[in-house]
């Protein structure tokens, strides 16, 4: 996760409280999704950005996880997301983010 986005997440957690923040990922790659999820839960694993050593434990979800899918308007989902469902390994993405959340997350929906 780039340094600016790490700062934005940190600022939002400071302003609204980590317990009130949900991060929804739309990564195309399970390994990348794991890194992003780890960054907002356990801290930046590369130790390069503002979240290095900052374990926010945020509630982080992949957009293809059931909890998020159920929150989405079906017609918007069809218009914006449905094509990518055919392209991406949605199960692997959801599993990757859920695994990191369960390991490092302090909050859930």
């Amino acid at each position, binding site marked *: 996760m780039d340094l600016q986005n790490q700062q934005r997440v940190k600022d939002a957690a400071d302003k609204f409280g980590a317990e009130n923040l949900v991060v929804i990922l739309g990564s195309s790659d399970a390994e990348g999704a794991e890194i992003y999820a780890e960054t907002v839960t356990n801290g930046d694993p590369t130790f390069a950005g503002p979240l290095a050593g900052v374990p926010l434990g945020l509630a982080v979800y992949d957009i293809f996880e059931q909890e998020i899918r159920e929150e989405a308007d079906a017609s918007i989902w069809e218009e*914006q997301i*449905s*094509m990518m469902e055919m392209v991406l390994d949605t199960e692997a993405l959801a599993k990757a983010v859920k695994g990191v959340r369960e390991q490092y997350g302090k909050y859930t929906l």
Partner: protein
Amino acid sequence: MAHVAIRGYSYCLNHTPELGLHYGNTPYTELTSHGETEFLKGLAGNLQSYGEACCYPPNQVFIGGMELDDLAVHPSPMYRNRLKEGPRFGKFGEIMPENEFLGLMDICDVFDLIWLEEGFASDVSAALAKHHLFSDRIMARLEKGHPLPEIDEEISRHGALPLYFHGKIAGCCRKGHDIDESLSAHVLLENLASKAGSVLALLHLLESTGLSPSDIDYVIECSEEAAGDMNQRGGGNFAKAIAEIAGCVNASGFDVRSFCAGPVNAMIAGATQVASGARPNVVVLAGGAVPKLFMNSRDHIKKEMPPLEDCLGNFAVLLDPDDGSCPVMRVDALGKHSVGAGSSPQAITSALVLEPLQKIGLSFADVDKFAAELQIPEITVPAGAGDVPTSNYKMIAALAVMKGQLKKEEMPAFVEQKGIPGFAHTQGHIPSGVPFIGHACEAIREGRYGRVMIIGKGSLFLARLTNLSDGASFLIEPGAGPGLRGEITKDDVREAILEVLMDLSKGLTG
């Protein structure tokens, strides 16, 4: 509507691991933020040699030394399955070693910004003198060099940045102004490297097309650097500066910017000028991006693989009127990602792929190959960005399924048939569709492809001015020559009238 010939193309790489080690953004920010870390030591200790870079299969594909079909079946990881031989020159261009590239940067410097150490300058002069594209006029621009103490002083006391070769100081890049950040040594180094890469690609293009520099009418440059000063940070104009060095005395030019979508937008800008008759020919070109060297190297080092992002990419394409002898770029079916199109992948894919095809009554099946973002997958996958080219083909296939033009179970076959493997360095604008133009035109000439689509996409949101992205696309087809494409010319009308009059005359005379 007139179509525009793609008369020639060139593709070069500049193997610049030491520019990358010191001035690539990832290692540079690591050094300035955290000092000499284990990552930086690992990077410095694992740089690829020039020979290794030449034997890396994607690099050979880029310069036309290897066919795409051969790359598609090459065993991976390719960095462990290098070619036995890696020639410097391919049919599209070359892989230039770093010492010669530093010499070329000096040749391209008209403000005495690059100083080379005198011994290094002498060695480089001898090496470049053997290069078949470096004329006496160009070689005369190479400086004799400065004593090392002068260079050391320029670095230690006047803010110049050291240039390295084999770990030793080979010269420096001086700043252009005391307080203007747009003219800092760092910015000027990036700009001169980009300019030098473009000049190299232009020299190869002139050679392959058999044109004289004075034949070039117009140059459009489309890299991602900004040339200017503090009053106009992106004032330009790289294009004219490049044309000047190459000796294109009759040319003018301008720059086009749109992040990674720049090259496709520049191709469209050039083609429409030719199609309208405004210009007899246009060269579209770009040099590479020093900041992107070793962009993903942190992950490469962590995963104990060689840091592969050690090459700057350059290209040049010559456009002129269609005479039937060259593949053509269609200007009547251009993909455009409009402001209101939406930013979801399906909205972007619809705008860039489906809509231009629909406009001329074609379907997905009518395109033999699609080329969008052509990054080398084994560079991006370890960094968590996935196989970018394959993701693009899957998106196009998925859209074809949604539009009822493909069955879902046919998606894997569609991806394999209509995609090409990634073979371009992560140089932003360089991998964005345009590296395929050369291979595509060769295949069209040989009758292997009937139609290909080139797609460029750009992340405009990185500039913090808009959340939008950009995109553009065009089709390449076999050339047919003027008047042979269904358009009605004056001659056609004259002939038809004569035919009718003759028939009428025969009828009247019985």
